[in-house]
């Protein structure tokens, strides 16, 4: 035994302690008693030390040494769990990568922000449009009733129908008839106050009390049961009550009176809170139905005649529970037979309230949405987002080679495939979040910029639904963008990548990248072609020779009134209601007065402009005593000045003769051909049947002109003089040399004359060119939307190309250097770098052309007069795309080609 080495302590206490002491304390405890023993041996000798040893051991027999540490899982044994460590590492690496490749991050963030922003905007619009009339109680049981007359569908019913439905049919919980109405409103002043007058108030309805059983309002005063049971009662919304009576308590508005059209006195019997939800039934005042028979309204709304169909007369119903609409439609067949004889020309059909926002003929005066346009918008948004995602996929796979080594190292250090995938998903998440942030920041200014394309009720607010949408968009974008890079790069073999063999796996990705570029440019080209086609069609429409002159012509007139829209059912031969004679006289006076103003070249009275939405037709036209199939005629009313005013051309015969009693007509060339004359001169003097009771000789034939928007074909046209129908004044201004200020003074003078003759009617005017353009408002909107989509898709695609060009020229720097050393010219290298892209775009053009042709042909079918889809459009689109792509790429290509080869080669 070594004298320096103290004798070891007895073995048995060690064994005992090893058993008893908790493992984490064993080392220090055993160390302590051994050291103590050694000290005692030195001091007291081995015997004494051994004697005291057992006391030392016993001192450790305490629960705090014996109790085991609770069994803690390994990952808890460290202060920070390792998986958040890894996540933090992912985020850190992602941020570093993005910060290093600024071009790449910029392209991705801008592209994704464009895509997500577009999606967000269109989501907001879609949500708004689909929210209409969804908030009513039992909205799924509420239906409107359509009349089907001669195969045409109208959203109105004959006057007596609501009452008859209630009497004769079963299956309804509620039936409510109502009439839409427009009138001026006068609020009489109190003792000393001035009375208030509101010129034209739309959004008035005359309703049966049941209306409020279907549409539930919160009643601030009055109640649904009694407020509208009496004649001359009106219910207002709170907003309208404030407008009329100021900030009065709703209860004090009750009993106040107001006048419609200066003569119909009604008493306010109720005030309801405005709806919070969006609705097309946005009436703001409801007159009781009982008012109609008790006032002059009975002349306007015929509640007894089954033969008249007034556009204002509507009925809305609520089905009883568990009644199918088909059961009601079946009852309508018997219903029609009861009222229109055994073979009725009339039938009725239910149309659900839900979705009625997408049928322009429903509801009050609200704006309607077009379902196809919405779907197109959604598809466009989806495509734009996909294009942005493709950029991400392309750029990350293009970078794959640079990152292959990193992935190899990660794998060697124990990263598995899902870990690598997590890394790439984190990168796409960071990018997407940045893009979402950018999109949210930009959405409000952008929406303000396009306010005229977006319905007024659409606003960006951060609420739960929008948040959910953004979350969903983020998730979908992240997964779509991250999926492919994660899968491909995650499956790299570390041995190969660390050896530097990445080229072998590179060729497959190249194919995919080319495929994706082709896809991107296919979409872009479809939009480019669509824009070109829509643009050329609209140019054709707006610049076509209409057959009449539109320059410097102003049409005067107030808002339309209900009597414009009516149709007769069956054999009703009563003449349409004519304006009172004194009104015709007043119009004549006004016309003369305006004629005398300086700067006015000519004034005529007419029923409508040559091209107008108004239409008056007769389906039984033909020559007198002819056995030919009757033709449809369209009527224009004007006197001998009508044709020269619009500078139409007479091709045969003569113009109408002056004088009110002239009973003769002009017809259009098409009309002459339709009547069976190949030589239009032969039509002169023949007699034309223009209504069941009217026959007129044909005085002349005018050259064809377009009377409708180009969506509809023009009918055979008949021009006739009928002073009672000619209620619109058209003014031709001597516009040559007239400054804008002079025009304003002239308009002011015309307004003064108007006020003098029609003090009660509001003055309104429109330029004929503008009202013709307004016929194409929807098309112009479509054009702007398509152009926008085109710009965005092309921008995103080119951004993607730019990114790829930057990377590929970087990667090929050495190759370019070697080529130059071996004698390649700069232009040769630029061509080499660009030719692939030209090839890809040509392939995309091949795919896009038939697609675009198919869609645009469908769109053009909506026009009766259209341009042809010529091949040059496709060529132009293709060369535009190639030009843009080359512009994007060539900059990089030229830069790469000009680099001194020494620089790129010496870096070895």
């Amino acid at each position, binding site marked *: 035994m070594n004298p320096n*080495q*103290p004798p070891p302590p007895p073995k048995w206490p060690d064994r005992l302690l090893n058993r008893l002491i908790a493992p984490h304390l064993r*080392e*220090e*405890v*055993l*160390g*302590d*008693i*051994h*050291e*103590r023993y*050694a*000290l005692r041996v030195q001091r007291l000798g081995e015997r004494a030390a051994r004697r*005291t040893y057992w*006391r*030392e*051991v*016993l*001192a*450790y*027999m*305490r629960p*705090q*040494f014996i109790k085991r540490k609770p069994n803690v899982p390994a990952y808890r044994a460290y202060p920070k769990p390792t998986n958040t460590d890894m996540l933090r590492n992912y985020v850190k690496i992602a941020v570093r990568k993005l910060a290093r490749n600024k071009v790449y991050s910029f392209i991705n963030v801008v592209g994704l922000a464009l895509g997500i922003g577009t999606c967000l905007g269109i989501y907001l619009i879609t949500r708004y449009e689909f929210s209409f009339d969804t908030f009513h109680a039992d909205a799924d049981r509420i239906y409107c009733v359509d009349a089907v007359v001669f195969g045409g569908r109208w959203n109105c019913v004959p006057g007596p129908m609501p009452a008859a439905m209630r009497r004769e049919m079963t299956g309804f919980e509620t039936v409510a008839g109502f009439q839409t109405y427009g009138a001026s409103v006068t609020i009489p002043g109190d003792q000393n106050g001035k009375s208030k007058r509101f010129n034209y108030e739309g959004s008035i309805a005359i309703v049966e009390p049941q209306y409020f059983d279907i549409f539930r309002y919160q009643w601030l005063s009055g109640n649904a049961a009694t407020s509208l049971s009496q004649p001359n009662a009106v219910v207002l919304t709170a907003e309208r009550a404030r407008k009329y009576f100021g900030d009065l308590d709703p209860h004090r508005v009750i009993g106040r009176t107001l006048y419609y059209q200066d003569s119909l006195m009604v008493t306010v019997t109720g005030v309801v809170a405005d709806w919070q939800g969006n609705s097309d039934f946005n009436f703001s005042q409801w007159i009781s139905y009982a008012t109609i028979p008790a006032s002059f309204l009975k002349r306007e709304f015929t509640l007894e005649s089954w033969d008249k169909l007034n556009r204002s007369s509507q009925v809305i119903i609520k089905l009883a529970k568990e009644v199918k609409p088909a059961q009601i439609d079946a009852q309508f067949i018997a219903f029609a037979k009861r009222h229109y004889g055994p073979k009725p020309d009339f039938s009725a059909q239910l149309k659900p309230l839900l979705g009625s926002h997408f049928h322009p003929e429903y509801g009050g005066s609200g704006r309607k949405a077009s379902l196809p346009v919405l779907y197109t918008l959604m598809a466009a948004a989806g495509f734009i987002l996909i294009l942005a995602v493709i950029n991400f996929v392309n750029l990350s796979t293009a970078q794959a080679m640079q990152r292959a080594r990193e992935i190899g190292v990660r794998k060697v250090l124990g990263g598995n495939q899902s870990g690598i995938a997590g890394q790439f998903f984190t990168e796409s998440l960071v990018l997407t979040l940045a893009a979402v942030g950018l999109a949210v920041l930009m959405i409000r200014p952008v929406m303000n910029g396009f306010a005229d394309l977006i319905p007024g009720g659409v606003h960006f607010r951060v609420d739960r639904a929008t948040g959910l949408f953004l979350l969903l968009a983020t998730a979908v974008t992240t997964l779509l963008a991250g999926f492919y890079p994660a899968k491909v790069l995650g499956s790299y073999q570390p041995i190969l990548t660390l050896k530097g063999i990445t080229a072998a796996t590179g060729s497959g990705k190249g194919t995919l990248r080319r495929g994706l570029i082709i896809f991107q440019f296919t979409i872009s080209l479809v939009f480019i072609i669509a824009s070109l086609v829509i643009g050329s069609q609209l140019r054709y429409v707006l610049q076509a020779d209409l057959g009449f002159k539109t320059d410097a012509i102003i049409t005067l007139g107030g808002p339309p009134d209900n009597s414009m829209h009516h149709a007769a059912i069956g054999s009703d031969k009563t003449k349409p209601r004519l304006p009172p004679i004194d009104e015709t006289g007043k119009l004549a006076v006004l016309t003369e007065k305006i004629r005398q103003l300086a700067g006015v070249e000519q004034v005529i009275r007419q029923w409508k402009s040559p091209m107008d939405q108004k239409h008056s037709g007769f389906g039984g036209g033909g020559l007198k005593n002819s056995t030919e199939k009757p033709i449809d005629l369209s009527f224009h009313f004007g006197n001998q000045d009508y044709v020269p005013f619009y500078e139409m051309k007479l091709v045969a015969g003569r113009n109408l003769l002056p004088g009110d009693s002239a009973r003769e007509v002009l017809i259009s060339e098409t009309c002459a051909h339709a009547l069976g004359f190949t030589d239009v001169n032969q039509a002169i003097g023949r007699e034309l049947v223009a209504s069941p009771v009217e026959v007129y000789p044909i005085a002349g034939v005018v050259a064809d002109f377009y009377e409708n928007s180009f969506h509809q074909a023009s009918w055979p046209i008949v021009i006739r003089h009928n002073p009672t129908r000619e209620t619109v004044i058209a003014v031709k201004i001597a516009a040559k040399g007239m400054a804008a200020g002079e025009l304003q003074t002239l308009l002011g003078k015309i307004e003064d004359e108007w006020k003098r003759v029609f003090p009660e009617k509001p003055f309104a005017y429109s330029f004929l060119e503008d009202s013709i353009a307004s016929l194409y408002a929807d098309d112009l909107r479509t054009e702007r939307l398509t152009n926008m989509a085109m710009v965005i898709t092309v921008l995103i695609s080119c951004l993607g190309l730019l990114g790829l060009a930057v990377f590929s020229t970087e990667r090929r720097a050495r190759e370019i250097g070697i080529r130059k050393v071996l004698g390649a010219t700069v232009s040769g290298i630029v061509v080499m770098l660009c030719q692939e892209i030209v090839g890809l775009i040509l392939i995309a053009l091949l795919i896009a052309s038939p697609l675009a042709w198919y869609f645009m042909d469908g769109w053009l079918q909506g026009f009766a007069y259209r341009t042809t889809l010529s091949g040059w459009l496709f060529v132009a689109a293709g060369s535009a795309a190639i030009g843009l792509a080359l512009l994007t790429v060539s900059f990089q290509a030229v830069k790469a080609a000009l680099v001194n080869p020494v620089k790129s080669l010496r870096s070895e």
Partner: protein
Amino acid sequence: MRRSDLGEFEEVVLLAVAVLSPRAYSVVIAEELERETGQTVSTGAVHAALQRLEQKGYLRSELGEATPERGGRRKRLFTVTALGGRVLSEVRSVRNRLWDRIIPQTILKWS
């Protein structure tokens, strides 16, 4: 200061750690206390007190180096924390104040 917070033995151990710092571990503390008090003090008792003091936050510990007489096992070295130091000086000042109030004659009577 509650009495349960620092027992008499604990106080002595804490003081010993302060004295022997930075090389205070149970064996040297036990030896030191034996020398000072003349009574046998087992390392187990000291170690238990050290553990309690560490739990209370008056001490912190780390593993030190190994020596041959420990059979190659590491020792646990203790140091007084700021809190421990404050507690010690508070106890001391309570004592001092009380001592100062004893009339000198009384002390004379004892000795």
